[in-house]
């Protein structure tokens, strides 16, 4: 899995790839962390959460939104993301976890929100591809 930060005039975009949908979810989340912070220190506790949505793209949106929410209320930067995506009866679900680095231990900037703008989440010959623009 991998991610790259892409140019976007006012905002920042994350382009990510992974062998599986699980990997690409986690890769976008790590890319989001990278957009907030250049170098991530060790330490911090892992925390887990789950999110459900009505589709694959909405799930990615809600997953990233939840990470931003957890960041603000736990006051940690979520890094080293893991995600497991599943679907049953039309309900999409991600079981996720992240290592939360306390704000005091990291020099990070705010990232305000995830957006749907130009969002892409698709299966490719090599696995999965995602493109997400964040409002910073």
């Amino acid at each position: 899995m991998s991610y790259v930060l892409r140019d976007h005039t006012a905002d920042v975009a994350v382009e990510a790839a992974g062998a599986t949908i699980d990997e690409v979810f986690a890769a976008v989340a790590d890319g989001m962390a990278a957009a907030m912070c250049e170098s991530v220190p060790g330490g911090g506790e892992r925390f887990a959460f789950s999110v459900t949505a009505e589709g694959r793209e909405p799930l990615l949106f809600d997953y990233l939104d939840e990470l931003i929410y957890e960041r603000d209320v736990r006051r940690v930067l979520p890094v080293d993301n893991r995600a497991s995506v599943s679907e049953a009866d039309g309900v999409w679900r991600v079981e996720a976890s992240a290592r939360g680095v306390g704000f005091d231990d990291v020099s990070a900037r705010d990232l305000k929100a995830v957006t749907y703008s130009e969002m892409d989440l698709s299966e490719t010959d090599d696995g999965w591809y995602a493109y997400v623009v964040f409002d910073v």
Partner: protein
Amino acid sequence: MTTYEADGITLEQVREFVWEIPREGGMNAPARVLASEALLDEISDDKTLQQLRNATHLPGVRKYAVCMPDGHQGYGFPVGGVAAIDAEHGCISPGAIGYDINCLTADTDVLLSHGRSLPIAELRDRFESEEAVVPTGDDLVESGIRLFTESGTKPVYEVETETGRTLQATADHPVRTDDGMVDVRDLEAGDTVAVHPFEGIEHEQPEEFTILSPEDFKGESRQLVRALEERDLLPLTSTDRKLPYLLKMVGYLLGDGAFAGNGQTWFYGDPEELEAIRDDVRALGFKPSRIYERERNHETDGNTFETTEYSFTVTARSLRKAFVELGVPEQPKVESGFTTPEYLGRLADWQKALFYAAYFGTEMNAPAAQHDKNRYRPKVSQTRTESTADAGRQFLEDLREFLGDVGIEANAIEEFETDSNRDHRTVRLRVGIKNDSVNLVRFFSRVGYRYNPEKQRKALKSVQYLRAKEREISRRERIASEAQALADGGTAVSELRDGFDINDRFVERSVWSGRSGRPQPGSDFPDYDEFCSETEVKEDGTIQSEVVSIEAVGEKPVYDIGVTHDAHAFLADGFVVSNCGVRMVKTNLTYDDVRGREAELVDALFANVPTGLGGGGVFEGTKGDIEDILEGGVEWALEEGYAVPGDLDHCEDEGRRPDADPSAVSQKAKDRGKNQVGSLGSGNHFLEVQRVTDVYRDDVASEFGLERDQIVVLIHCGSRGLGHQVCTDYLREIEQAHAGLLDRLPDKELAAAPAGSQLAEAYYGAMCAAINFAWVNRQLITHQTRRVFGKVFDEDPEALGMDLLYDVAHNIGKKEVHDLGDERGEVYLHRKGATRAFPAGREEVPPAYRGVGQPVLIPGSMGAGSYVLRGGENSLAETFGSTAHGAGRLMSRTQAKQEFWGEDVMDDLRDHNQVYVKAQSGATVAEEAPGVYKDVDEVVRVSDALGIGDRVARTYPVCNIKG
């Protein structure tokens, strides 16, 4: 014509600095870009123009969408975009049972105007010409339908209420309850929901024929005929839009009306009733008189008593003549021989129902209790002379036949001899509605009473009561027959007693003695009068009803409609984000007072104003505090000691948006807000100490209290995580609720809540609450700044003259009234990265500045300085009272980080520009380096030249702190 080609988009030059993308394809209006060619080169370099064009696809965009000179690519709508979105068209349609209709199954009946209904799926081909009925809480209003969408097959739930009525809808379908709108998924048995018991009659298209033609008016004056022609009443056909009003009035006049000289038609009734008729008179294009009131003395059996009689009149020979032609007798009714108007029999059932229901409204007794001794039945009677009795019989026979056609049984006509009339022998004819529950429910819910709100309310209560009673009786019947079957099969009665949720005696009677007829409801079932006194009918006719079950009923195709509805528009999410804005605080210090102390000042500010990610806030609140902030805005800050009274006078909206609805802000958003009250955040937000370097308009600058060399403080930030969470929450909800609308827009990020919908209302309330939060945020930073200045300059902050110049948002959606080209109207004015710039005289400008125009604050980049403008006199005509909001980015953040190094930028600024910068993150400084922004001077030059925002003063940074 000069044109500008940009990546497939052609802009035509309207005049200097004004470029237009003509309307084409799905655009609802043209788009304009206000820019010099140099700025246009920059604007067309990213997706700004495509996004601007996409935004004009939003329903209800008026006149044109505008891009300010500092425009750049955003998400959905471009930053620097302004759009006025019609405030008359929206999307809400609570139908037959008081719900928003947005995801209902095909057979859900939608109540339409004039007492008609249709299954929602059948609206597909005719929604554009239809009117649905919308309960607004205060009233039941008719409203055009703007949208119809099929949303594919989705899991559907059936909600059943205590009256046995059901609704099938998706889990996210909102239902009106005591606690506001609740999604079906969150409903539980025992919750109460709003239902509207009136069902109406299924719409059908009447046979096309002429009812009144000019021949019917031969011999009348030309003027009279013209009066009718001008109002589209002549010729009158069976399908005319105005016919329903006439049918109701004719029905009413056969009961309680009279003609008088001078072309007067008089209507008598209760004031409430008369108001309803007056509305219809206006709908026909005539002017009703006011309602007259007079005391009348009556004498009955030697007792005199006084009553108040209410009436109004319409004075129009033409209308009076039309009524006569439509069957209203000119002589006293008893002798007139009036009968069913000839044309009525050829009309559709729903049209006949209007005529009869209005007649019932005046002539039929009101719903009442069903006692054993007093078997209530709704009935009408007519007194006729011997010679006109046949006409009367015919009228009532026709009436019975109509009722039969719509499934309502009436008794045979009864006749009584009377001799009350001195001149003639008279006979009284009477027809009653059969009074079994099922028949009465049909009568009240399909036909009922028109023009008589009191009888209507009683009819609605009766429907609820009779349905609930019927449901209870059916339940008891089931128990009785099951008990009997079990007993026949050998189950002991002692066992049976415990097996049913009913008293023992009932079981015993069911098994042993049997019972003749259907069982009665139990003694704990309320009687009619009790039920009526406990049941409230809202002004819009809705009644609270308890939910008894919610069950999944599989997957079904679901549909949406959206109706236009008063004072609502499409509220577009995604382009009104964080209520981000700017405020400027003045001081009476000069640059000389600050020189040499910049480092100390910037450190003190940085230490006292939270910045960056996780910096906390000036104030850490509880949930209750956050709600108070959302509700009160700067007023909260004043009460808590973070503001002075003058702050309110110099803030947009005096620091408080009255439309704020804290309950529409999610818990998640409030959680995020708790530790961010009074914090700058990151990105392009900053606090800057500046010096005034140039003054362009002395008179205005003096009104603003600005002069050269003066030190001022500019604070630029928004509503932080709370505002963003509000935006995200509603974006997702809108996406789910209005998928049909969204599918037709070119960009998902343009998600629009069709106005009038519960979601649009909620979003507007939440956004206004977030605006209050943003003001408080900037206010608390102001408070800290005042304290820091007090300490650094060892003075009482008040003695430093640290007054607020102005606080203005540049990411905001607001209801405003504007000139829309062909008319004036209320719009939701969306300014995404654009600043309100109202000229002198506009009412919304605080009194302090009304004479010179609203202050406009344009923050520039760190090296280039900022501007204070005032709303220009052309702004209302050109840009709906808006101008730019800043320099506008040129370079992406990622590229900026490659090109600049934070430390270098800071050193450069300090050494070469005497600007002291302190930031949480070096990367932020690199991202915000002066070179990444458009030339703010050029942006302001265009604004000034167009007269939308006039230059007043320019400021240059001294110290800057950021996240």
